């Protein structure tokens, strides 16, 4: 995997997305995620209503990959039900592990399909998956509390 297929325009654009990167005043749940080894450190905030993700945003810092992945994920899950979001998360993680291969499933990920080949860069896998793991945990905690 060379640099131009890693730092694509789409990924770079998302990595600097300011719309999704903000503090969500009215969040009903939030979850911090961290890669101790490389220092990516994000907090995902969700506004959930009746099991639906009405709004989502994140704060924190990290590399272009982690920031872009987080931003794409937020675009993807906003407006979905918690179950749908969890499912998408599983599909994303499955894609990274090369376990999910059908085009139909991958298409559900919309722009986030951009990370399909990140496993060729093992050092960056953690950056790409951080947000999705964090989302899953956030939703599970929200379910517990409701």
């Amino acid at each position: 995997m060379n640099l131009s297929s890693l730092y694509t325009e789409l990924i770079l654009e998302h990595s600097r997305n300011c719309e999704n990167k903000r503090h969500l005043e009215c969040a009903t749940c939030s979850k911090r995620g961290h890669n101790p080894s490389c220092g990516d450190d994000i907090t995902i905030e969700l506004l959930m209503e009746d099991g639906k993700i009405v709004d989502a945003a994140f704060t924190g810092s990290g590399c272009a990959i982690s920031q872009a992945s987080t931003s794409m994920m937020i675009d993807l899950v906003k407006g979905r039900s918690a179950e749908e979001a969890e499912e998408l998360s599983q599909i994303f993680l499955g894609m990274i592990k090369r376990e999910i291969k059908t085009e139909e499933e991958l298409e559900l990920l919309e722009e986030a399909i951009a990370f399909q080949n990140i496993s060729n860069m093992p050092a960056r896998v953690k950056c790409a998956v951080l947000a999705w793991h964090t989302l899953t945990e956030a939703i599970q905690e929200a379910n517990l509390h409701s």
Partner: protein
Amino acid sequence: MYDVQAIRQKFPTLQQQVNGKPLIYFDNAATTHTPMEVLDAVRDYKERFNANPHRGAHYLGIQATELYEQAREKVAAFINAPSPQEVIFTKNATEALNLVAYSYGFSQIQAGDDIVLCISEHHSNLVPWQRVAKLKGATLRYLYLTEDYTLDWEEVREVITTKTALFAIAQMSNVLGTIYPIRELVAYAHQQGAVVVVDGAQSVPHLKTDVQELEADFFVFSGHKVFAPMGIGVLYGRRELLESMPPFLMGGEMVEYVQEQETTFNDIPYKFEAGTPNVEGAVGLASAIDFLAGTSWEAIQEHEEKLTRYALERLQEVPHLKIYGPQAGRTGRGPVIAFTIDGCHPHDVATIVDQDGIALRAGHHCAQPLMNYLKAPATSRISFSLYNTKDEIDVLINSLQGVRGWLGYES
């Protein structure tokens, strides 16, 4: 066919002369030699990939991380651990046992609890528990041995009770060669509510290890006793236990967030691996596991059992020689034989046979409580590995027959 000569060819150390005689290395319970392929694997790693793992965003760092984690996976498969996260690399079995004592012991053992050990434990699986017992106000109790150097179930049922918080035992004694019925002991101890620590330092080189079958809560071993380099050891622990335990060594890699006054910790296994790990040691251990996979456990056991039987038989030809350990064959006995010769101190015995190129161990074998119990201040010890031969045993018997003569006895 088990081709012991082909196996020997792989070990450069075995090709040597000692005191003008071909080396006969019968000190395998102390440490084993390293086959060429393991030496090569380590060298290759050092020449091509050497880097600090887990922190690298560069090529060498990524390779080192992958090789280190692949070694963990290989170890997990080797001992049949449910997952690699339950495999923690330490510097040796001793550190692994101390990790359990400091982290699990100090946090879970309560005043009034019993800690049960077998009297044949190695100091590394004994002194840490003395310390825990003393500091926590627990009672240290021992299982003693039958005439045939094994456990008495009646005594087991008396000593391991619902008061027993922890039971620690070696799968195989490094002095007697006794292989204890770990699976049954674990089952019984679990019924009583005890957590069981199994010291596999001596059994791993000789038996197929299956921590799930044993149902061990913790299991440890050392790389250097199983054809790997020194400086690498393993702790397996059940996930729930490891996850609930506080960290032991603290520093780089085992943390999540560090603030000036507070720290949160990484997940297992990293929580227990502070500082730069011994990557080349792990690579060497993985390679040693590959080496072992080249021969079936059945073949290794058959060979070692044959040697042990033969040695036990021939040792009877040596006058005034007494053996400490079970007479039986494979079941319940590994290839370690402790003995004394009347009137001859084991240290002198070792010096005398050393002149014939034979490496025996002499002393208390880090098991002083056992020696006191056996009323033998010291013994000599023969311990075989998969590369030893019958011919070597013949040379030993010959040499032993001269010992009393050297020490001034008529016969």
